[in-house]
């Protein structure tokens, strides 16, 4: 038994040291950083609640939160509708079923940086693919990324394209666990296909929908490379994301205390939003 304990300690110590250094210490230190003013060059100084005070009145921070909610307001419904539609289409007897699924899943495995640069080419005003297609229909060029009202919706569409394959697979797994007898029962009652979907399939897919909403929301709060490459946070800061703002505070302005404050605020905000969503979706069928 002594030998077993020794082996156990030996094999797990590197992992324990790693957790201490790269998980536990950073969690604790994030709270300390909130109270500091530190540029990483000169020694840190105690700043009290300055960072929190600055956060409360920081128009850019609030703008980035508003931007995130604009993104989510478009992205979440779009993601659910497209994923569910394509999952329902793939959930029948199909020729080349694996091919269709693989096609929709392809953008999921591609790096976000590559997808974003590809979409910068699709959205380009003069030489872009989408405006090229529109020109074929005699429609004028749309300034996808330079119009303040269009830029964030454009990013939301791109994010949907990137991730929807993943959610199709999730919904497909859910659909395959819906028993046939459920549909047969309501069809005997004379329900239409739409009624059967709305009253039987959709409620049974609630766990999957909850997962889609949760993961997409977390993804929405993690927007970084998309605005970084496509818009730099513009036009008029309408695509500035919290992480992009945090990155700039750390990397460009050397404000570690404030960047950590943004990180903490973001973590708490994500937790609150997820709790609210679970409450709302969780109570949907009791009504």
């Amino acid at each position, binding site marked *: 038994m002594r030998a*077993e*304990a*020794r*082996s*156990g300690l030996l*094999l*797990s110590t*590197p*992992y*324990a040291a790693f*957790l201490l*250094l790269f*998980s536990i210490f*950073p*969690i604790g230190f994030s709270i300390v*950083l909130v109270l500091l003013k530190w540029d*990483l060059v000169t020694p840190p100084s105690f700043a009290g609640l300055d960072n929190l005070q600055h956060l409360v009145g920081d128009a850019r921070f609030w703008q980035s939160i508003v931007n995130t909610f604009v993104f989510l307001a478009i992205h979440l419904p779009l993601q659910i509708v497209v994923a569910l539609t394509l999952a329902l*289409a793939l959930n029948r007897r*199909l020729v080349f079923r*694996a091919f*269709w*699924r693989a096609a*929709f*899943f*392809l953008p*999921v*495995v*591609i*790096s*976000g*940086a*590559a997808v974003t*640069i*590809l*979409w910068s*080419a*699709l959205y380009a005003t*003069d*030489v872009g*693919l989408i405006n*090229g*297609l529109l020109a074929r229909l005699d429609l004028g060029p749309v300034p996808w990324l330079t119009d303040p009202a269009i830029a964030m919706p454009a990013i939301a569409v791109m994010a949907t*394209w990137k*991730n929807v394959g*993943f959610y199709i*697979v*999730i919904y497909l*797994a859910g659909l395959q666990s819906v028993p046939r007898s459920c549909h047969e029962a309501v069809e005997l009652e004379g329900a239409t296909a739409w009624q059967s979907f709305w009253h039987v399939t959709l409620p049974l897919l609630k766990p999957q929908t909850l997962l889609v909403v949760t*993961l997409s929301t*977390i993804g929405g709060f993690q927007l970084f*490379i998309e605005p970084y*490459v496509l818009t730099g946070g513009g036009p008029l800061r309408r695509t500035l994301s919290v992480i992009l703002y*945090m*990155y700039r505070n*750390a*990397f460009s302005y050397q404000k*570690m205390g404030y960047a950590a404050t943004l*990180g*903490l605020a*973001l973590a708490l905000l994500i937790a609150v939003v997820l709790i609210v969503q679970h409450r709302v979706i969780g109570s949907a069928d009791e009504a």
Partner: protein
Amino acid sequence: MRRTAFYLVLAVAAIAFLYPFLWMAATTFKSPAEVGGLSLLPAQPTLENYRLMWTRAPFGRALFNSLLVATTITMSVLVFGSAAAYALARLRFPGRQVLNAVTIAVLLVPAQLTLIPTYTLIVQFGWIDSYAALIVPYAFNATAILILRQFFLQVPRSLIDSARLDGMGELRILFTVFWPLAKAPLATVGILTFMGAWNEVLWPLLVVRDEQLMTLPQLLTVFSLGGGAGPRQLATKLAATMVLVVPVVAAYALLQRFFIESMASTGIKG
């Protein structure tokens, strides 16, 4: 009739996902005059965009860096990670329960919270512009440990007992008895880890400033921000993107089911 219409709609949807990739590939072989066009066949195919991309930024070096970083991280997560997972699953030692609990707790902490504190730590270590900064913070992965531990818990006790009677040490038991049984979870963890490391861009943008040490997605991002918006720049940017995309698409084409199942089973996206 309805069936035909259904397949037509499905085909349009699939084109929306595949055509941009094909258009990108075609565009990288086009001359500036053709770049805005929708055609998938360049009239006068040219390698000029690839030549420009290759000479303007160290993409060969970035490819090497990305391969080195992603491979090292994956090896570490598999070898050291499964050693820790084995200990947590099958060995009794002081502190095991705490370590198991911390592993789960860590998964609940959002990455945004630890990003900046970890960055300050790397700066204090003097690791800015080093491979260590890119590799060490990813050397272990709590999700990977949980997946492997879960699998190791199911291996019959008798296999360990008889291996011990044969005089095998714990490491030999892990690598000669457990690993051959754990091919599926090891493949899942390997794919997820490699893809995550290969695609990561925010962390390299924080800790690496020297062009020679940049990873492929990072150099690509920096390069694409520096270019202009003209047709030549666009085609060059896309040529650079191809270097990042083609190896992944090739691997995906071969191991498509593995990719989809690994990612979907754990709820982790690339």
